[in-house]
């Protein structure tokens, strides 16, 4: 009989991945993730490539949006599903191999010990590889914007590597379907009075992720969507 596999994080930790046309990189991400966490949910956000087929090759839960709804929408779908399965700690993790799976134990630690309701990964406290100057400027602009508008002092506003306690995941509702969800989560942390800490993490930029990822100009649209979303309920 084969012994039960040991994972780096407990079984009540669920990792949620929103994936849109990530067929090429998702396999690498899942290969690195599965020795760390047992429970992984991939939300295929209406991809037109082989993302779902790639996910099916791995022992993960696969949810599929019939049409593309955006990263924020996909994350909320994954979080809802993980909660319905009894998750006590919920981790959001990017599909494009930018994050380092072995850092998950560090990220969940403040939530696991009850020190915080939410742990936010920060590349500026941690380490970045191949971060372009234009992206650095946009990210720093995002930090300033968040401090002014949401009045929350974080060092990295658009980092997809986070950990939520179950109660925090219940209280935060992502209504920003697209990229403005990251700002919305920070805004919700302040308005809901949730305890948070930032944890140093590594972000690896590659030519592929930069080509597929958000344009720096898209920051203007994110600001616009976030502000309108605050007004329109």
């Amino acid at each position, binding site marked *: 009989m*084969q012994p039960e*596999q040991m994972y780096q994080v407990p079984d009540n930790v669920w990792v949620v991945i929103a994936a849109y046309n990530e067929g090429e990189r998702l396999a690498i991400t899942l*290969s690195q993730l*599965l020795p760390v966490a047992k429970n992984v949910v991939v*939300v295929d956000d*209406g991809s037109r490539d082989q993302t779902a087929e790639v996910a*099916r*090759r*791995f*022992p*993960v*839960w*696969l*949810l*599929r*949006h*019939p*049409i593309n*709804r*955006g990263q924020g*929408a996909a994350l*909320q*779908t994954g979080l*809802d*599903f993980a909660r*319905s399965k009894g998750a006590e700690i919920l981790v959001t993790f990017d599909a494009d191999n930018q994050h380092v799976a072995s850092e998950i134990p560090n990220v969940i630690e403040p939530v696991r010990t009850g020190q915080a309701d939410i742990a936010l990964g920060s590349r500026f406290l941690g380490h970045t590889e191949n971060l372009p100057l234009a992206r650095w400027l946009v990210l720093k602009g995002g930090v300033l914007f968040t401090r002014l508008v949401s009045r929350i002092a974080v060092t990295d506003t658009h980092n997809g590597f986070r950990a939520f306690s179950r109660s925090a995941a219940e209280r935060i509702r992502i*209504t920003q*379907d697209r990229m403005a969800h990251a700002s919305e989560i920070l805004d919700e942390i302040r308005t809901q009075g949730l305890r948070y800490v930032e944890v140093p993490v590594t972000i690896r930029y590659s030519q592929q992720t930069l080509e597929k990822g958000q344009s720096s100009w898209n920051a203007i649209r994110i600001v616009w969507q976030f502000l*309108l*979303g605050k007004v*329109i309920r």
Partner: protein
Amino acid sequence: MSTFQILSVLILGTFALRDLIGVLSRANGRGIRLLRLCVWSAAITAIINPGFPQAIANLLGIGRGADVVLYIFVLAFLWVSFFLYSCHLRVQRQVTQLARHIAIQEAQPPMIGERKAQDQ
């Protein structure tokens, strides 16, 4: 009154009457009906008495009556744009909820034995 004025007043009067009935009948959306009633009434007044916009312009210190009409149109355009965007956003959120419901209902569990295959 010219033919244009008579026709315009008849059309706008019909709209105004419909909204007046809506306001008096305590139907839903009384606020928006009342707002529309004000718009129709102002338009009818301006058509019957072309000096009305000029009087408003003098009152506001704008200068020309045509400018008052232009400014009102600009503000109305912004308001309508915002209103339509709000409707669009709410529909988008409903579509997302629907997509989420389908995704969760049709969740595919991990394949039995796949993990062992990955480990080997």
